[in-house]
């Protein structure tokens, strides 16, 4: 029996098959994962698949992955002495103030702020979630989530889409752009490593890996104010980024709303400042206690 084996030829064939298998596996990774292999392998003259990017969007209200609406009361478990009382001048132990910020903090004068109509400087968006009080969140319209705050009688509007109007001046609460965040699709590739597209060049996203499940809010156009009651400054160029989440307490019937805030302000801060606030859901507006802004009161 004559055995003729060309290893080079066999290896070459095996290699080609392996490359082919690898390329196909990429397509299968997208296709099988999405349970939509047929759609992605569709002929060019057919209608585009249903999961292309130009799918008609729901309104932000209808698309809300979590319900943040309702009445909430602050639970002051952190930085208590900076929030429940007015801290002393120059007490900025937990704020990464730069030298210019320290100079401004050193001349804090609450009486002067009251007299000059600036009593609300410590009730601006970067600070207001830290001020002990109650908040009421509801949809003002399909694209705007509204937060009324009893401390200082302030209102924040979270605009889904759009950008700050250039014609309007800065305000205590600034202009907040909101989005539901956290959604991500599986990154799928064709056999050459490129994105999977339809014939019109539209991306065919992979199946959802994660759904959006938290609220991101970015606030700009701020009137300069204070991060703490004792005159720790932020400038008009500060950018406030917030992450709102809600979840049930694992030990009780409480529902939590947590707000993680990051303030970026190169004028007064060495690095971004982080703050956290926690709220418990309450049934109604019992205890709602609107105050006017006071420069030398905790709320």
């Amino acid at each position: 029996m004559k055995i003729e084996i060309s290893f080079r030829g066999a290896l070459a064939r095996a290699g080609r098959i392996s490359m082919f298998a690898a390329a196909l596996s990429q397509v299968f990774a997208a296709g099988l994962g999405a349970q939509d292999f047929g759609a992605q392998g569709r002929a060019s003259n057919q209608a585009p698949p249903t999961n292309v990017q130009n799918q008609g969007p729901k309104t932000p209200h209808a698309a809300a992955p979590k319900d943040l609406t309702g009445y909430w009361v602050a639970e002051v478990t952190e930085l208590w002495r900076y929030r429940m009382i007015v801290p002393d001048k120059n007490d900025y132990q937990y704020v990464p103030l730069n030298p210019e910020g320290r100079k401004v903090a050193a001349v804090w004068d609450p009486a002067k702020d009251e007299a000059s109509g600036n009593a609300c400087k410590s009730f601006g968006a970067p600070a207001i979630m830290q001020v002990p009080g109650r908040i009421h969140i509801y949809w003002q319209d399909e694209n705007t989530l509204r937060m009324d705050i009893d401390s200082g009688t302030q209102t924040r509007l979270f605009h889904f889409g759009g950008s700050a109007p250039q014609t309007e001046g800065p305000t205590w609460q600034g202009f907040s752009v909101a989005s539901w965040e956290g959604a991500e699709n599986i990154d799928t590739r064709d056999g050459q490593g490129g994105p999977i597209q339809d014939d019109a060049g539209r991306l065919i996203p992979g199946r959802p890996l994660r759904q959006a499940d938290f609220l991101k809010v970015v606030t700009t156009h701020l009137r300069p104010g204070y991060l703490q009651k004792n005159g720790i400054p932020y400038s008009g160029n500060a950018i406030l980024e917030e992450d709102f989440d809600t979840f049930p307490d694992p030990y009780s019937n409480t529902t939590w709303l947590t707000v993680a805030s990051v303030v970026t302000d190169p004028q007064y801060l060495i690095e971004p400042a982080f703050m956290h606030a926690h709220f418990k859901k309450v049934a109604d507006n019992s205890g709602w206690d609107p105050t006017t802004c006071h420069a030398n009161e905790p709320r």
Partner: protein
Amino acid sequence: MTFANMNFKMSGLWLLLLPLLLVLPARPARAQSDIIGEWSPRVYNDGVDVGDYTGIPLNEAGRQRAESWHPDQIDLPENECRPHPIDIGLRVSVSQLRITPELDPETRQQIGYRLHVAWQEPEQVIYTDGRPHPSPNAPHRWSGFSTGHWEGNTFVYFTDHLKEAYLTRTGVPRSSKATVTTRMHRYGNYLNITFIINDPAYLTQPYIREYSWVYTPDQVIAPFPCEIIPDGTILPAGSVPNFLPGKNDILFNFATEYGIPPEAALGGAETISPEYIRKLKTMKVAPRTTTEHFKRAG
């Protein structure tokens, strides 16, 4: 056997193997964001003063234990190298954090996550493979026993079997009966970690607190060697510094220094509510000794 036959048989083999090759890489990825990596703390560490129990829903037993704590206890030999349990390690040690996947040594499949904190090197393994928690009679450990799962973008894990430890650096106790629910949520390059501590021994209600870290892939966590100094070197051998009930003469220094009514500084659920501000205004404050806090070390 001819070459042609051999080749045909190899091709047949490939045809048999091809579906397997196609399916294996097509396993759907897990629905989770990436928390693995090096994280630099942005922890603003309040609760560093003796007598500062503010914001903590302490009960009377917890308050009594806290008041008996003496700062010299840190120098006891058994405390010098004592690791922080991870719930306090992430909270008060203002220390670097590393999160790595925990792999089964045999199968190399991921079975959880491992947390490593720089200061005193506490470690916590959080199992995600569905294993049950051990018997209530199983030994308690510094970082307890943890199991976790993903809820969308948030990694949630539950810890029990904790040894008794502290909620603050200054002696506010957390009992071995406590359990901790932790929520890790990454957004962008920030990692938020929320702790909800339930301690039937020393708290009247769940205690929530939250801290942030920044993704820092190039950070280096140095080893933390710790050597116990022999008993009697710092403190008299056999002594345990403490305050007997009612004898803590430094308890209200914090309240006095910051202009806080002494009763309010001792914590409790009532003090956490915004309504308490009204009560605070009616309470007496001791004469101030200083307002020059900015001169203190950070």
